């Protein structure tokens, strides 16, 4: 399967996938993304729920067993991880071009 169809990832999706390299529930993702982005990306609840649904549909994250019946726990899938690696490589290339030009 060609994973390039998922690229480029939006900034918010990139953050969400990064956060889910460790399993966590919805609110954990919101907090982790805010932390990773130094407070710049604050995803709201309604947006978060929709994003989770989309990512599950695309097979980039999945729901795993949760100790709390009221909160589902999510984690990045192997496919999601591959997409994340491809995106990181794409970004590294862009950064390299910037560095070469002292931007």
């Amino acid at each position, binding site marked *: 399967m060609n994973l390039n169809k*998922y690229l480029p*990832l*939006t*900034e*918010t*999706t990139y953050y*969400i996938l990064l956060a889910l390299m460790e399993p966590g*529930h*919805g*609110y954990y993702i*919101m907090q982790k993304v805010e932390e990773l982005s130094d407070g*710049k*990306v*604050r*995803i*709201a*609840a*309604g*947006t*978060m*729920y*929709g*994003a989770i649904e*989309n*990512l599950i549909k*695309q097979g*980039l994250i999945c729901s795993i067993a949760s100790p709390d*019946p*009221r*909160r*589902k726990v999510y984690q990045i899938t192997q496919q999601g991880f591959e997409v994340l690696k491809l995106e990181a490589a794409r970004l590294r290339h862009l950064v390299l071009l910037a560095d070469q030009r002292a931007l």
Partner: protein
Amino acid sequence: MTVFKCFMDFKKEEQWLLEMARKGNRLIKAGNGYYKFIYDANIPDNYSIKTDYRTFSKDGDYNNYLSLFEDSGWRHIAGGKWAGNQYFERVSPDANDDIFSDSFSSAGRYKRYSYMWLSIAVAYLPLMVVYTQNWIVSPDKMFHFKELYLTPGLWDMKGAKFLLAFLFETPFALFRGYSSLIFFIIILLYAYCAIKSYRLYKKELKNITHQSVPNTKA
């Protein structure tokens, strides 16, 4: 107090609910076309009330959804698993100003709402077809008014006897002749709601003022 009001636009609804809150009316229950408020003099200045549209088939999914809002500082005021309209009020001071941080998700609720109307309109189509196949409610009878009345000898009766028989049968006759029209009108009405909601969806997608973080759509 209970207020009866209908909204097609979620943003207008949110605005109205906020205005009500400014006057001291706190929403405690909401349903199809009605809102219940209680008077609360101590509603804070930074009070925020927002609405989402989403339906759920499993209890687990619904609880998961509600917990996410609860965790992020939004209390669920009204709404059910099947009802669709979910109302939230902000209870935590450091929660976001809104339950949506990008236009894509804010627009998503109009799309879901639109699909709901569309699915009902489509569901009525086979019903309309079945009814028009049935000889009792065929559309061509609409043009032969007298034929709608099945009472034998009705049109030969005179005076008070005629009037009585005529009036008695009128509701049945109207049903016989025009119910297929009712289905048709219902379908048109629901299709109109679906189209209007879809237009609002498209409009909200382009709304850049509703974008505090980059879009979540991958």
